[in-house]
């Protein structure tokens, strides 16, 4: 009795290139069970010693969200990013009021002999 090729299902493979790295999506394999999925993943994503860890996840178990209304809302969210704060002119005005010169860049100070 065979299970037939319709029992094969896709498994997503994630791999870590070296300790401490994030797990990155590598690709997928088609397998009838987790054990074979892991064997295929090792063969296709670890054969060349390019991984120190592999994760294999049943594709059907992955929850997917790509709704732009939720993830990329068309609102000004610049206050959440460093680039959202532009203070060059205000800073210049503050220095002038305080009678202070603009500090030298840090790198330039480092090479100055003491």
């Amino acid at each position, binding site marked *: 009795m065979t299970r037939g090729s319709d029992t094969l299902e*896709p498994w997503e493979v994630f791999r870590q290139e070296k300790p401490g790295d994030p797990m990155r999506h590598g*690709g*997928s394999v088609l397998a009838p069970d987790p054990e074979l999925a892991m064997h295929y993943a090792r063969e296709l994503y670890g*054969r*060349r010693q390019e991984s120190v860890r592999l994760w294999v996840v049943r594709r059907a178990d992955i929850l997917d969200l790509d709704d732009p209304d939720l993830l990329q809302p068309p609102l000004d969210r610049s206050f959440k990013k460093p680039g959202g704060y532009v203070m060059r002119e205000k800073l210049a005005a503050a220095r002038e009021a305080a009678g202070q010169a603009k500090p030298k860049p840090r790198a330039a100070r480092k090479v100055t002999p003491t």
Partner: protein
Amino acid sequence: MTGGPVTEQPSEDAVLARFEAFVAEGGKVEAGDDMPDAYRSAVLRFVEMHANSELMGVLPERDWLMRAPTLRRKLALTAKIQDEVGHAQLLYRVAEDLGKSREAMVDDLLAGRTKFHNVFHYPTRSWADVGIIAWLVDAAAIVAQQALRDSSYAPYARTMRKICWEESVHIMHGRDIVVTMATGTTNQRDQIQEALDRWWGPLMQMHGPRTPRERDLDLRWRIKAKSSEELRQEFLTIYVPRIRELGLTIPDPVLRFDDDAGTWIYTEPDWDELRRVVTNHGPMSEERLAFRRSARAETAWVRETILAAPQAA
């Protein structure tokens, strides 16, 4: 694909136009996304042909496994063959997600309903051919494959990044064989020159005839990034100097770089030969397909075992 909810049913043309604008701006398509049927079949056809070529491409090299001159060469060739079969598996996986089973793809390949690359329809006459194939056939392929790392079909693009990394090792392996023989005995030098003479024609045909950009749907949909002529020119620019520095003669008296036009001038490749060969009328087409058919029959028990219902304990 993004785009937000569709409130009314737009016409098929409107959907296609919107999709074309999306990919033209660099939009990427994932396996589960909506995509026009025409795009889906074009990507499938492209990836399937690529997968077939990886699978069939190991057969000429397989012939030399037991005749490799040293153990190290044998290990390297074995690893290359393993890589190429691995590429076939990665690519069939990408194609499967577009809706065609691996079973059906192998059926079509073995029945001659789908194609594989011209260069894999020819015999290998000597060990020098193995070097020329690994160096120059893989080089011509990698020029094309690098341009696929930014394909609009994202799962293919990601797979190509992995494949290109592996192919770069094959090129070094091939170049090392060629350089070794080019600095060897007179007999070895002659064999390398003869191999180059044999393979130059198929190499120049490999990227296919020039097609007008506007008529090439694979280009318009960004499935691929470069036309066949752009790829051939790029291949010549990189590899002609590397071939010539070894003292080898490229068997094309017309071949030269035209400074004014900024392009390589070459003898027109034999497009009739290309058409004959890729429709399985090449010198080794039938033999290689027959070998695949018998290998498939011999390994049927493996697939049946894997798909067999687990035994009750």
